[in-house]
C-alpha cells in the first residue's frame, strides 16, 4: 500500500526560500502541516517561517528527521532535487514544479519505484488530508472535513468541484492531484485502491481530462470490482481539443483512446455517475449520500 501523509507526518520543503516555497510553507503551517525542515542549496542556516533551512537533504534528515517531502524547485533543477529526496528515502515526494521535462519525470519516477517510494506529480497541487495536513498548494478554504475522496488530473478544476461538495455539507476526506503532465507518478487506480481501504472515504470523485487512458483504465478497475463504493466523474475537454497531439506514434501508443466522449462512455458503462457540468457532481452526491 502506498504511504500517504497523515496528521503529524514530518515534512521537508525543498525550494523553501523561493517565493512559491515561502508562501506555501506559511499556508501549509497555518493548515497544521508539521514542516520540520527546508532545503535550498547555498541558503543553509537561514529560517523561513521559523523552519530551519539546510543546504542538503542529508543535513535536514540528520537534524530534523523529515519523513515526506514537497518540492517547489524550478523545473531545470527539479530532477536533482527529487533524486536527492529519493536517495534520502523520503516518502511520499510531492513535486509541485510545473514544466519539468518528460525525460526527467520518467527517470525520477523509475528511480522512486525501484525503491518503493511514491511520487505525487509533477505539476500537481499535492495532497490534502482534510482537517489533518496538506502537502500542496490547494487553497484550504474550499475544503471541509467530510466523506468524499477526490482524485484529479487538474488542480484548479479540483478546487471548483471540492468547493461545491463542501458547500452542500458533505465535505472531503482526502484529495489528491495526480498532476497535469503526460507522465506522472500516480494514476487513478492507485488512488482508488487506497480510497477503497480508507475508512473515512465513503465515495470517490474522479476528475479527468482529454488525453491518455488513465480514466479508461480506472473504469476497467471499477467494473472489475476493485472499487466498490459510489464513484462519480467529471471529464473536461468536450468542446475544444487544445491537448497537444503527439503525432502518429503517440496515437498508436494510446490505441486511439483519449477523447472526452470515450472516457465518459467507459466510466458510465462501469456504473460511474458522469456529470455534464462540474456542479453536477455535488448535486449527484447529495442525492446519493444525503
Amino acid at each position, binding site marked *: 500500500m502506498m504511504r500517504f501523509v497523515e496528521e503529524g507526518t514530518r515534512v521537508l520543503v525543498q525550494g523553501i526560500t523561493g517565493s512559491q516555497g515561502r508562501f506555501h510553507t506559511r499556508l501549509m503551517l497555518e493548515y497544521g502541516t508539521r514542516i520540520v525542515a527546508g532545503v535550498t542549496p547555498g541558503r543553509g542556516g537561514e529560517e523561513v517561517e521559523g523552519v530551519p533551512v539546510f543546504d542538503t537533504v542529508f543535513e535536514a534528515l540528520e537534524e530534523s528527521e523529515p519523513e515526506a517531502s514537497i518540492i517547489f524547485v524550478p523545473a531545470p533543477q527539479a530532477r536533482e532535487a527529487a533524486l536527492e529526496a529519493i536517495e534520502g528515502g523520503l516518502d511520499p515526494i510531492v513535486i509541485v514544479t510545473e514544466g519539468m521535462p518528460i525525460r526527467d519525470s*520518467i527517470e525520477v519516477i523509475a528511480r522512486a519505484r525501484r525503491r518503493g517510494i511514491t511520487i505525487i506529480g509533477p505539476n500537481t497541487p499535492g495532497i490534502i488530508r482534510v482537517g489533518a495536513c496538506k502537502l500542496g498548494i490547494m*487553497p484550504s478554504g474550499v475544503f471541509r472535513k467530510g466523506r468524499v475522496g477526490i482524485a484529479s488530473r487538474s488542480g484548479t478544476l479540483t478546487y471548483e468541484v471540492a468547493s461545491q461538495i463542501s458547500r452542500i455539507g458533505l465535505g472531503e476526506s482526502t484529495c489528491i492531484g495526480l498532476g*497535469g503532465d503526460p507522465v506522472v507518478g500516480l494514476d487513478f487506480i492507485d488512488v482508488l485502491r487506497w480510497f477503497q481501504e480508507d475508512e473515512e472515504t465513503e465515495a470517490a470523485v474522479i476528475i479527468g481530462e482529454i488525453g491518455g487512458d488513465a480514466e479508461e483504465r480506472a473504469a476497467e478497475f471499477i467494473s472489475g470490482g476493485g472499487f466498490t463504493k459510489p464513484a462519480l466523474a467529471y471529464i473536461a475537454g468536450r468542446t475544444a481539443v487544445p491537448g497537444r497531439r503527439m503525432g*502518429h506514434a503517440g496515437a498508436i501508443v494510446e490505441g486511439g483512446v483519449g477523447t472526452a466522449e470515450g472516457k465518459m462512455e467507459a466510466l458510465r458503462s462501469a456504473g460511474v455517475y458522469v456529470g455534464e457540468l462540474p*456542479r453536477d457532481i455535488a448535486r449527484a452526491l447529495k442525492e446519493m449520500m444525503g
Partner: protein
Amino acid sequence: MRLLEYEAKEVFRTFQIPIPRGDVAESAEEAVRVAEGIGGPVVVKAQVPVGGRGKAGGVIFAENPEEAGEAASTLLGRGLRGLRVRRVLVEERLRIDRELYLGLTVDRRCRSYVFLASGEGGVDIEEVAQRAPEKVIKYAIDPLEGFRRHHARWVAKRLGFSGGLMMKLSEIAKRLYEMGVEMDAELTEINPLAQVGEGFVAADARLNIDDNALFRHGDLVQRYGGGELEGLSEAEREARGLGLTYVELDGDIGIIGNGAGLTMATLDTVNFYGGRPGNFLDLGGGAPPERVEQAITLLLNNRRIRVILLNILGGITRCDEIARGIVNARRKGGPIKPIVVRISGTNEEEGIRILAEAGLEISGSMEEAAERAVALSRGGWA
C-alpha cells in the same frame, strides 16, 4: 517544438543516422545548384510543419537540375495545407527496395519511452496500427536500463532481418533512441526508413522536442525556433512569445482560465449554455499581473471576441495578482469589451476588493459566469 524535415535531418546527421544527400533551397536558382551538386534524379520537398505533404502535392520528382528548378518554383510561395512554403529540400532520389518505420515516443501508461517499428513504412503508420496491430512492434524501454544494442537487434529480427542488414538496422534504431533521449524528443520518427541495397537511409525525418526541455537546447531554439511558428496564427504566435497556452477557436466568447482542466471545463460550460468559445487561453500556475494583463490585451485586440470571461481558481495563482492584471489591462485603454470575472481561492478577498474598486462585478460561480458571458455575447445583459 516541431522541427522541419531538413532541420530534423541536420540533427539526425550529427547522430550519424544516414540521410540522403541534399540541401535546403529558398529559390529556384538555389534548387538548381543543389541538384547539380547531387547529379542525377532528385526529389524536391516542401518544408512545412504538417503531415501528408505527398498527398497534398508538396513532393515533386525531378529528372535533372532544370526540372528541380521548375519544381522549386511551383512549390515556393504556394500554400500547402494553409501554410506558405518558404523552403524546399532538394535530395537525391533513392532506389528504394523496401520501406520501414522506426519511431520513439513517450508512453504515459508505462511511464517510459517506447520504441516502435514496422515493416510497413511510408504509409500512414497510425492506419497500419489500427488495421493490423500485429504489424507494429512496440518495445517499452526500462528507463533505468535504456535501449541497448541487444534490444535493438531484437527489434530488427522481429522485422525479419538477419546478418549484415540486421546489424545495420539495429545500429540505426539504437542511434535514433540515443538521439531521442539526448534531444528530449517527445516524438521522433523515420517514416520511411528506406532500404537501399545493403543499407538503410532515413528518407523522411521527424523530431518533436518537449517544450519543457527547451532550456537544455538553447542552440537548437536559436537555429530552428522559427519553423514551427509558421503553422500558427499571428495571435497564437504572440501568445507563444508571452508564454501563454493559447488556441484559437471560431466563436466570440474569449475565455481565460488557470490550469488546462479548468479552462477546458469553462469552454465546456459556455458551450453547454449555448455560447461559442472563441479561444482557449490557459494562464498556467502563479500568473503575475503582467501575464494576466497581456492575456486580456490579446483578447481585447482580437476583433472576433465580443465578451471576455475569466474563470480563476487561486491555488498557486493569487487572486489579488489576477485582479491587478485585469485592472491594468482596462486602464491601458484599447477596445472596450464586457469582462465577466469569476475568481475564488488564494487571496480572494483582496482580489474582489481590487475589482470592486474598479467597478467590476464578480460572478458567484463558474456556471453563473458562463451564462452571463453567453447572454452578453448575444447582445443582452444578464
